[in-house]
């Protein structure tokens, strides 16, 4: 029977994990895996693929844990690794496109948009966005990256990143308005 040792503090856990203690690694995995899978899921539509990206992310975490300097939060460090891993996964799949087409949107207010959306609904909305829009939107609005960082990450200009975000917002607004109308019973044909 395997006896799992429990470490009191996260710092201790990290130290042990750096020494390739499986127990410590397992505890860290158990602690952060659900959150990190959620992060990966934000970018990758398929949960299985998202899990794959998460697994390779954790592999990198445990391989490079000795390089982690306790300056920032450990969670933040893992999160960044997961984001990078998800993006590289999508890059491998060649799913990221940054369309430069000019789309005209109707000016609609955010006032009548239902903010009490379920997480699944939000995820659905995000998934419905084109990959380029989705990436920039999630990175900027959810992860808190700057446009300069996003531009550097994808090798695009800052203005492209900004335009992608603008288009993503507009698209989301349209979709949310549509949902609201459906839920209110006023279906447009």
């Amino acid at each position, binding site marked *: 029977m395997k006896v799992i040792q429990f470490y009191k503090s996260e710092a201790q856990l990290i130290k042990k994990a750096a020494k390739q203690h499986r127990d410590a690694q397992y505890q860290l995995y158990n602690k952060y895996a*659900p*959150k990190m899978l959620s992060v990966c*899921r934000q970018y990758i539509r398929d949960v299985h693929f998202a899990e794959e990206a998460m697994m390779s992310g954790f592999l990198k975490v445990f391989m490079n844990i000795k390089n982690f300097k306790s300056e920032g939060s450990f969670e933040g460090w893992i999160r960044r690794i997961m984001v990078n891993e998800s993006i590289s996964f999508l890059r491998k799949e060649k799913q990221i496109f940054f369309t430069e087409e000019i789309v005209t949107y109707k000016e609609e207010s*955010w006032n009548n*948009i239902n903010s009490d959306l379920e997480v699944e609904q939000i995820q659905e909305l*995000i998934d419905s966005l084109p990959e380029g829009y989705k990436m920039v939107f999630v990175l900027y*609005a959810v992860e808190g990256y700057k446009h300069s960082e996003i531009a550097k990450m994808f090798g695009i200009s800052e203005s492209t990143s900004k335009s992608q975000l603008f288009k993503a917002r507009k698209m989301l*607004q349209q979709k949310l308005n549509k949902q609201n109308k459906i839920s209110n019973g006023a279906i447009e044909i």
Partner: protein
Amino acid sequence: MAPLKFEEKIKEKLEQRAIEPSAGSWKRLETQLEQPYTRKKGYKTIWYSVAAIFIGVLILTFVFKSQNTVSGNRDSQFVDKTEEIKEKDNIEVVLEKDIPNEVATEKHQTPINDGTKEEAIAGSNAEEGNTVHNNNPISKDEEYRNQINTGVAEKVKDTFKVLEPKQEIVKTVVREDVLAINEIVEGKVANVVAQIQELKKNKTEVTEEEINMLLLNAQREITSQNIFKTNTVNASALLQEVESEVDETFKQRVFEALKTSFQKVKTAVAEREN
């Protein structure tokens, strides 16, 4: 609701979300965690060995190439030199050995024949002399002349014997320039013999010095013409020639100096006496 507020709501909800990974995910990760170390080690050794092999191959190729270039240079130099040497040898062999063997032998027969003729003449002279001696007493001058005749013949033989083959001669292709040299030698031999004959006819006495001078001149002319014909300069021959020329001029100068000093002394003595 402003877009930023909406995004904040999204962020909140997404951050609160947790998706449980599949049951065997940790096991898979564990196996993956085990593998990289063995893989890493394996990869390391493989990479090191590959790098070592690569470096080894590079060094070997470098060494091999450098050796090739050196040997190639050597070979080319060797080949070139051998060819040059062969050419030189051909010329030299022809000059020293082939001439008498292949071409000069025939042509050489003329002086030898002449020599034998001379000898025969000398012999007949001697016989005549003997017969005369039996009948009349021969003067010392005639004896001396006979001796000179025989001496001339011997000298001619000796000088051109140098050109006769001493060892087994390598069969080489006789070139046109070599033939020309042979012709020159032949002509010179004939010329020398004719000059001696003329001297004999004109003068009662032909001194050994005169014969030596004739032969020396003939040799010089032959060597100089050889140089012009073959376009190859024999350094030693050239040096010898120059030395002889220098000697002559030096002698002349010494004689001139002696002459002028003698004249000065003579005039001084004459003036003092006056």
